[in-house]
């Protein structure tokens, strides 16, 4: 009789143990799933907003073009107006290509080593990449304008940008919303913290009038002779 009673208690206790561990596991799994789902939802929302913005801009451009075409077709545009419009397009494209010296609100970031430790190209690249992620409109390192094909390469104690030697301190200029630019760099565990870890001193100044010079136009930086346009 007492054997059955003991056995009963044992079985009940074993069951209790199993149930408890299952319970614990399922709570943990649920938490991970919830975190993953949330991340996915956040990604989707940012993607969606970006896509909507892009579509709005496309629609605006289409409307503009339709208007232009209408006036071209009906001949209300004189040759002179066509010329003016083409010139305006050309100027905009020149600004975008970095062929004009520009100014605007932005930040000036000075990067220098504290104890004479060398500054690597990767240190400059992470700063540039972070600024690009903040919708920057013009960028320069020691007044060398950054274009699509600009390299940043360390060669001993200096770095090369657009094939030109630059010496420290490195001064990165960027034009875009100054607040956003600064906070993108100073975010916790962000670029500034990383650079400090490498014994570099980073100074960020917001400015109303950051001047960024045009790209050197001697045919060594802007090259496109190997590109065949496809129609």
């Amino acid at each position: 009789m007492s054997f059955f009673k003991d056995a009963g208690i044992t079985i009940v206790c074993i069951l209790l143990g199993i149930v408890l561990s299952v319970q614990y596991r399922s709570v943990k799994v649920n938490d991970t799933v919830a975190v993953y789902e949330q991340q996915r939802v956040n990604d989707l929302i940012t993607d969606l907003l970006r896509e909507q913005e892009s579509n709005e801009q496309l629609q605006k451009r289409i409307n503009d073009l339709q208007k232009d075409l209408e006036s071209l077709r009906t001949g209300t545009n004189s040759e002179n107006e066509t010329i003016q419009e083409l010139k305006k397009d050309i100027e905009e494209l020149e600004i975008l290509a970095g062929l004009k010296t520009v100014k605007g609100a932005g930040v000036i970031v000075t990067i220098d080593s504290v104890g004479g430790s060398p500054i690597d190209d990767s240190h400059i690249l992470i700063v540039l990449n972070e600024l690009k992620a903040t919708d920057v409109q013009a960028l320069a390192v020691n007044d060398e304008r950054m274009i699509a094909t600009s390299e940043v390469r360390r060669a001993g104690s200096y770095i090369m940008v657009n094939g030109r030697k630059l010496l420290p301190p490195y001064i990165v200029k960027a034009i875009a919303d100054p607040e956003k630019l600064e906070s993108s760099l100073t975010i916790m565990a962000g670029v500034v913290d990383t650079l400090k870890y490498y014994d570099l001193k980073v100074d960020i100044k917001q400015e109303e009038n950051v001047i960024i010079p045009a790209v050197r136009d001697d045919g060594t930086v802007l090259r496109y002779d190997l590109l065949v346009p496809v129609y």
Partner: protein
Amino acid sequence: MSKSKGIIFVAFILLGMVLAMQSRTILLAKQQNVVGQTSVQSLSAELEQEKNQGLKLQEELYRLEEREAEIIRQISNEGNPLINDLLDERHTLQTVNGFTDVQGSGVIITLDDAPARNEMDPSQLIIHDSDITNILNELRTAGAQALAINDERIIATSKQLCAGPTILINKNRYPVPYVVKAIGDPDELFNALEQSEAVTIMKIYDIQVSIRKEYEIFIPRYNAYRNTENMISGLEVVER
């Protein structure tokens, strides 16, 4: 006798409590899952729709741009060489800015995450944005004239951000494998990459890197925002 009864009593109370808790978590988890899934599903569907809309708008824009060039050319054929010159100049600048499809010789690099291995930290097996930045930098140093990642044209202000297992380029998100295309001198580009620190380190970590020279590479135009005005809205020209 009454002692063992007491133990059984307590054990059953505990068992009952645990059972109730367990069934509650299961019910809750099911509910959560349903909510999470529907919002993921509906968001995905909405995104898909928006993307399709974007493609349609893109096509419409190309069509209009071609039509515009055609009409202007017709007008200028009727006798204005100035318009022809301006059209050519505009086209060259569009090429410089990455707004035209281009073709040429160069290299194609394919990158894929390393196969999973238990003994290693997974973050060392995946491709980071710094890997991509380094590769682009090597290609630029070796004289690349046009660059694209997964057919997203890289322009001066293109952003590349790693967000977990995907990469965000311009405004679009791509999973691995990443295909980097570069037009330039194929030998120079190839050698620069083969000897680069970036590629050597990736190979040490078993990241799958393949580099091949190609003589007919097609790189599409920049597609993210075609509105030049918006891309230079914060810039004022300084005359020198």
